[in-house]
């Protein structure tokens, strides 16, 4: 019994150390911040929901203090749901229903994720190609840059339905129109980052390539491209998060039946605030996983390129 407990404690200690190593000793500060946020959240919910609770109850009912607080934390359609309500909703819609069901958040997340990934792919490739063109053709820098910047000032929420309708008229429906909207948003940081990255090599290194009489293609593949890798990953991390936002935005005005965006919209139609928040939490988790995945690829790539950079 005692030995068992000791091994248990040892295992926990080892586990703790591993966690500390992976998280770089940030566990305590991070959990403190989360704790504070949760406390603030519950307090805010009392204030925000108090009005509705009192209106519903009418003038005659007298609340005990604890009953009143419990009521603000357990409404069906609260103005501000509290974390445990959201987690219960997520459990219901993630674990308790079949993945294929229209009520499953996993199903909706998967729809949004495939739009995100397709949009990310199209956007990143476009962004990289634009950067390559801008870096190699001086005239293009002046010609393209203003348009690229202007493109980001267009209100995407207004353009999205137009894109979907126009593409629908020529027979393109489903994931692609939404992915294009997502790509439209996410190519921008990639272009900006890669223009910076492709022009980052020291002049001396460019001169070195000239002394070898290297062709522009050789200078690109052997110098500019590898030198831009850190910039590429920095922009890809931004881009994947943006393309998730783009995918959700693209689902909103297009009458999509599936996806986290559709779920948000349905939730707000029917005043299902808990459902909205559950979709939001899922979207946030999805973004975190996507960014972490890009980070992992970055880690492996950088290690293959000599580690310390």
């Amino acid at each position: 019994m005692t030995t068992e407990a000791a091994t248990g404690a040892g295992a926990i200690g080892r586990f703790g150390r591993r966690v500390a190593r992976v998280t770089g000793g940030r566990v305590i500060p991070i959990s403190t911040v989360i704790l504070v946020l949760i406390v603030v959240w519950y307090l805010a919910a009392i204030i925000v929901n108090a009005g509705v609770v009192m209106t519903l109850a009418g003038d005659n009912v007298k609340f005990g203090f604890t009953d009143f607080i419990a009521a603000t934390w357990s409404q069906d359609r609260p103005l501000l749901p509290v974390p445990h309500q959201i987690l219960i909703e997520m459990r219901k819609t993630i674990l308790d229903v079949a993945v294929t069901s229209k009520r499953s958040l996993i199903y909706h997340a998967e729809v949004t994720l495939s739009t995100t990934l397709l949009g990310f792919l199209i956007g990143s490739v476009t962004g990289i190609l634009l950067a390559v063109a801008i870096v190699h053709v001086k005239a293009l820098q002046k010609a393209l840059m203003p348009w690229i910047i202007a493109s980001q000032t267009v209100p995407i929420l207004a353009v999205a339905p137009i894109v979907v309708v126009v593409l629908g008229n020529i027979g393109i429906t489903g994931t692609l129109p939404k992915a294009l909207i997502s790509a439209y948003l996410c190519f921008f940081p990639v272009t900006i980052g890669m223009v910076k990255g492709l022009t980052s090599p020291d002049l001396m290194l460019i001169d070195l390539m000239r002394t070898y009489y290297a062709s522009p293609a050789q200078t690109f593949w052997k110098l500019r491209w590898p030198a831009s890798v850190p910039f590429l990953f920095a922009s890809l991390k931004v881009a994947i998060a943006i393309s998730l936002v783009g995918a959700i935005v693209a689902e909103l005005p297009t009458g999509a039946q599936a996806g986290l965006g559709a779920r948000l919209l349905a939730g707000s139609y029917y005043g299902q605030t808990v459902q909205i928040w559950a979709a939001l939490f899922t979207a946030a988790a999805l973004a975190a996983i996507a960014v972490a995945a890009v980070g992992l690829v970055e880690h492996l790539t950088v290690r293959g390129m000599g580690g310390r950079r």
Partner: protein
Amino acid sequence: MSIASNGIEHEFSSGTAGGAEQAKPTSGTAYPVIRTRNLSLTFDTDDGPVYALSKVDLSIHKGEFVSLIGPSGCGKTTLLRVIADLEQATGGDIEVNGVPPQVARTRRDYGYVFQAPALYPWRTVIGNVMLPLEIIGLPRHERHERAKAQLALVNLTGFEKKFPWQLSGGMQQRASIARALSFDPELLLMDEPFGALDEIVRDKLNGQLLKLWAETKKTVVFVTHSIPEAVFLSTRIVVMSPRPGRIIDVVDCDLPADRTLDIRESPEFLKIAHRVREGLRAGHSYDD
């Protein structure tokens, strides 16, 4: 590309560079590898013209080790860059191996060593040395062989798989010399290669460079602003002076071939060093 690789094969078989295409008498010991006549270069800047080089006449012959010495701003780097076709002269003419620098560069007639090692951080040491060979288009196997041999020549055997940040400054600079020599160019252009290193490392590398030069019989143009370094290494020292950048003296330096660092205390050495110092001083007083 085919010219360059032919050049290399030719070099390897007969010990002469690019001779076939040029039809130059490579057996004669004294054809100029570099010849400039009345060479000038003026940079147009916002603050008016900068006369980086003015009326430079210089011939450097096969197998020579020529140092360019002078205070900073006297045009040493600019002269080297004109030879390398990294900068174009605005007056006079220049030939490298009997052709304009532009042509010499396309034939990859020279290797260039910068003041900083300029190694690619994402390549291993041997990967860096193989870089020019990849660009020339040598087969993988041959690239590897050559790079390994060059690294041995600069005493870096065993460090092939290391990344640049794992090497000391002196080792990095040796790797960059190996890289410049990897495709076996006739001519080696070095711009203050040891300028950023401490004196002890520098002395050691000077000894090694001298040995390397004796073994490979390259023509070397070497920029420095250290008098002892110039006298120790060179067969000839070109003393330069700024505003306008020009040559004010050329000092012959006929120390024995098998010199060691001790020679720096010998009277012959001190006599040459004295003359170089006088030249530098004359350049300065003219300037003030």
